[in-house]
């Protein structure tokens, strides 16, 4: 396995990080009836904090329903947060209007899971790639088209593809086009929302390598969202593990993967460990049940109903992120906070 890109320790970097998310919350109201009474909330993101430094890849991993796609959209302000702060380059963008955000959008772009669906089927590839250029007023006409050809080249496709339509490309090629479009405005942050999840394994590798190459060439930061730990581990500098709207563990990728501190991370990593391709001999931990609905989360620690090591405090008190190792690792688990007086450990 190739080693990850140069690690940057966010805590040691002077000046503001590229992206700083603090206590981000997003609740979607559930309405009922003609008058749209709010009868409850879907607590998709329930207090998330992390940072992304320049040139860094932060992996955001979790099951479906954990809230990671919502985080992606909050970060890009495609959604407005219910509470919390999102700072890009030190500047608060959580409360900005859409109009104010428009010029800022050129700095952060997104690559979607289903690239073909993210292209208007009636537009040629040229139009698809030049759209952000025109929308941002950067360039248009021939100039934009030339830039599009340049971008296609950068991702390994050809200028001859400019006049084709989206449905004429395979999945891998389409994703390259998606990346090309995302790069059009020279962004500094790229959010990859399950960018390789729908691709064949061999094509996945190609695209991941392209992403890494571009990161080095262009100095990009990535927020890489996925549910497949292998992929996340391959590309990330740091990993944040999400469960039911909260980050329950985060830290340098390799450390989190080889020595998980949170029981949930252990089950994920245990699943990897059992995979013969990755080797390792950790004991497999079986987890009970399914992730509950975010509209009705459990009290206390969100994982406690399924946690094999849960004890009484877990159901009453939400664990805060506690230091869990070097490199600024944290994990939100009461097990890290056991003293002889506050509970017994279950191992």
């Amino acid at each position: 396995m190739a080693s990850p890109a140069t690690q940057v320790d966010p805590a040691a970097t002077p000046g503001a990080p590229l992206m700083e998310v603090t206590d981000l919350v997003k609740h979607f109201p559930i309405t009922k009836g003609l008058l749209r009474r709010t009868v409850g909330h879907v607590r998709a993101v329930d207090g998330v904090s992390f940072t992304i430094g320049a040139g860094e890849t932060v992996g955001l991993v979790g099951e479906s329903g954990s809230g990671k796609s919502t985080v992606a959209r909050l970060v890009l302000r495609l959604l407005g947060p219910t509470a919390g702060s999102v700072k890009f380059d030190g500047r608060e963008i959580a409360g900005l209007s859409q109009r104010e955000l428009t010029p800022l959008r050129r700095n952060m772009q997104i690559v979607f899971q289903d690239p073909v669906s993210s292209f208007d089927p009636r537009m040629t590839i040229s139009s698809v790639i030049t759209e952000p250029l025109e929308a941002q007023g950067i360039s248009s006409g021939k100039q934009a088209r030339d830039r599009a050809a340049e971008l296609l080249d950068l991702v390994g496709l050809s200028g001859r593809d400019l006049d084709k339509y989206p449905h004429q490309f395979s999945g891998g090629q389409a994703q390259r086009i998606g990346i090309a479009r995302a790069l059009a405005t020279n962004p500094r942050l790229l959010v990859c929302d399950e960018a390789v999840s729908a691709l064949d394994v061999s094509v996945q590798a190609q695209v991941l390598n392209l992403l890494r190459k571009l990161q080095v060439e262009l100095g990009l930061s990535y927020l890489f969202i996925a549910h497949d730990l292998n992929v996340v581990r391959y590309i990330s500098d740091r990993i944040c593990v999400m469960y039911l709207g909260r980050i329950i563990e985060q830290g340098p990728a390799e450390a989190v993967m080889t020595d998980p501190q949170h029981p949930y991370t252990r089950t994920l990593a245990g699943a990897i460990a059992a995979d013969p391709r990755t080797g390792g001999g950790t004991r497999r931990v079986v987890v009970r049940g399914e992730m509950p609905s975010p509209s009705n989360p459990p009290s206390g620690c969100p994982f406690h109903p399924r946690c094999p090591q849960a004890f009484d405090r877990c159901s009453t008190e939400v664990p805060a992120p506690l230091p869990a190792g070097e490199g600024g690792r944290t994990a939100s688990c009461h097990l890290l906070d056991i003293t002889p007086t506050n509970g017994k450990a279950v191992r």
Partner: protein
Amino acid sequence: MSEVDAGPATVVAPPAVRARAGRRGLGRLLRTQPLGAVAAVVIVLFVAAAALAPFIAPFDPTAQHRDAFLAVPGSPYLMGTDDLGRDIFSRVLYGARTSLLVAVCTLVAGGIIGIVIGVASGYFAGGWVDTLLQRIMDTLMAIPGIVLLLFIAALLGPSIRNTVIALSLLVIPTFNRVSRGEMLRIREELYVESARASGCSTWRILRRHGLPNLLAPILVVASLTFAIIIIAESALSFLGIGTPPPTPSWGAMLSDGSRYMEIAPWMVVFPGGALTLGVLAFNLLGDAMRDFFDPKQSSR
């Protein structure tokens, strides 16, 4: 880099999926929908008759030939004359003009208003804009079409302008419903979200992504609505509250002729036949277009 595999630059698309836009699309329409093709021809004739009426019509449609009341079809009155001695063939041609004029004006007025309301409602679905506009549309739709038509037409008095107004009101909810439905679908599309992420303004999104994708269903609806408008105009004229005399209108001709059906059936047969043909053609064209745009059908 050796790890990056560019893959072949082009891929041949599977035969079932081809570009629908452009001239290739029209050819395919004609091949797979022969009825639609025939209907299209009839419509072209209809439009030609209407447009060229001043050149083709042998007589002034309001001129009364007082030596030839209720003349049998023959020469020189190809379709005979009516009770005031007016040439029916000329009146049928000019009647096409009236029908076409009313239908086009109604489609443009009602269509634009309906589409704007529908697109705005659909894009801002759930908000106050949507709620307010749709409540208004619901109220309009709750009134039975015929009642609405008669009320407005009788209130405003017979004239082409008032007929267009009345018919536009009738037609707006249809376009609203279709546009709103499409917009609800479109705004959930990933490419719309992607456009927003790129920094496209709402206006730009609606213009570049909304409207072009709206085109197909709107065309189908427009064609079917055309038929309805032609009939409605005839109905209003038949009742005397549509096109005022002596402007020829197929509906008014049917009304005049109904009193002479036993003596001079040509007064009714020719305008009635033209009406039937025109409406049938637009219906068939609408059906053909709907089948054409239906993805399940087109992957044959």
